[in-house]
């Protein structure tokens, strides 16, 4: 059975005012409910524009064939708030998304907006803040936190309103490796618990390598969509659009160039380790 589509873009273009060339050019794609999709592309390829189209922060160019459907709702002026209820975005720079005077206030903001009763709200806030590992900063001022800590708070604010879709717009790029891993595993856990759909806009190719599905954008056009194996076995394409291959694919390529036989079917770290192990024990 085919999985339910939670996001469907049909023939979507967006041209910013005062520019001639569309930033997103006649883009169509589907995202399956409960999947983890990575959208990759160089700076300025249109990734963030797509994010902002999903929740109606930007309105697509007027075209009768264009539609954006989120969780069964066609995005229009009338449905925009229903759509935004379903989509949480964590931006790259958390300073641009803080409103509360304390960590707890900030996390509560989305709940207050939605009219959640105070008693319930306090529990949800506490739980969300604890889950992102910031429990001891409940009453701290966001401005006094480090970049990584701020991002955790931003993520808590999103988790608190339990959206169906969470978009990480370069959200881990400011975190240290441990912070990044802990946030990603937190999002994974939330995803499993609540059947969340995750869209991660990222330059971290190793992060994209762990996605179910990868969408490759170049100058506003989708040039490929598929599994990480399919995408990253095209080193010329990845390089041409200004990205880097995941480490394992680079290593595989270099080993082959060095005359070491690595089967084409090897696409994962464990597989490559296994092949190399055997090569060295046969000698």
């Amino acid at each position: 059975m085919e999985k339910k589509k939670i996001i469907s873009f049909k023939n979507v273009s967006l041209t910013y005012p005062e520019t001639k060339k569309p930033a997103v050019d006649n883009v169509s794609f589907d995202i399956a409910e409960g999947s983890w999709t990575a959208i990759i592309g160089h700076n300025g390829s249109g990734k963030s524009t797509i994010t902002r189209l999903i929740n109606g922060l930007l309105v697509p160019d007027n075209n009768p064939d264009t539609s954006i459907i989120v969780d069964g709702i066609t995005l229009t002026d009338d449905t925009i708030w229903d759509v935004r209820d379903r989509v949480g975005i964590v931006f790259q720079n958390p300073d641009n998304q803080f409103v509360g005077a304390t960590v707890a206030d900030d996390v509560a903001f989305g709940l207050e907006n939605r009219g959640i009763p105070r008693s319930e709200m306090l529990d949800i806030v506490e739980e969300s803040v604890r889950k992102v590992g910031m429990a001891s900063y409940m009453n701290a001022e966001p401005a006094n936190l480090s970049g990584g800590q701020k991002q955790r708070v931003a993520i808590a604010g999103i988790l608190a309103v339990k959206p169906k879709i969470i978009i990480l717009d370069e959200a881990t790029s400011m975190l240290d490796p441990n912070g990044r891993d802990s946030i990603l595993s937190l999002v994974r856990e939330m995803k499993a618990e609540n059947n969340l759909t995750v869209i991660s806009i990222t330059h971290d190719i190793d992060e994209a390598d762990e996605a179910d599905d990868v969408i490759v954008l170049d100058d506003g056009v989708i040039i490929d969509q598929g599994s990480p194996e399919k995408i990253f076995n095209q080193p010329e394409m990845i390089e041409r659009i200004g990205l880097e291959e995941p480490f394992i694919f680079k290593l595989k390529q270099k080993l082959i160039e060095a005359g070491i036989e690595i089967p084409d079917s090897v696409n994962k770290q464990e597989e490559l380790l296994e092949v190399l192990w055997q090569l060295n024990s046969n000698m």
Partner: protein
Amino acid sequence: MAIEFKHVNYIYSPGSPLEKKGLDDISFKLEENKFITLVGHTGSGKSTLMQHFNALLKPTSGEIDIAGMTIDSHSNNRQLKELRRHVSIVFQFPESQLFENTVLDDIAFGPKNFGYSEKEALDLAEEWLIKVGLDPEVGKKSPFDLSGGQMRRVAIAGVLAYQPDILCLDEPAAGLDPNAKKQMMQLFSDYQKAGHTVILVTHNMNDVADYADDVLVLEQGKLVKQATPRELFSDPQWLKDHYLDMPTAGQFAMQLKNYKFGENPLSLDELVAGIRKNLKR
């Protein structure tokens, strides 16, 4: 002339209930004209330490020798402008500090501020616009019409244009795509090789392995290690104890249990060479 920290302590909000130790008895010496990386976890004191390099923060106790000056808790703010001409700090997301009408004016602001004439400053701006990899045409645009990556370059050009002897950078490549990041790291590496000191705050151990001459590791406000990348990454247990990663190539090598590597490979090329050596035994 080396950079030297002597028993530097820094206390946030001393005497208040919020009192917090930022730096704890830090001493080290850095050679000039090297590429230094500063690593440590969120909250380890990296940013606090960095702000001491040009006295945005002054030590609560201890002293710092830098750029021919000595800074301690009594340092006079009047001397600091001279210090800041020699030592520049580029914070995270420097593009948020752009403000002029055109890109060239924005880049020229730094040199003008430090005493260059209008003409000299604009010449320097044109020169550095190109050196950071932007098209000369971009110079006439408003900085706010540029992409995030271009704005970042403009902001960095504005600092490089007055050629500080010591350039401190806090995660300057965060959020850039891999190509842009590589170009930017190359720019800093070239700047260092041209006879300047570069101090880079980073979480990326591959950058440490690729670029650093010397590494400072901070933990809870203390300096826990000063070493070359080779020394730092030769001790997997120490790294593990301090929750630091090995460069990707080294991580992979450690999992190849039936291979022997003389030194833990720090780059993809070293890893491939090491694997070949094992297989040709």
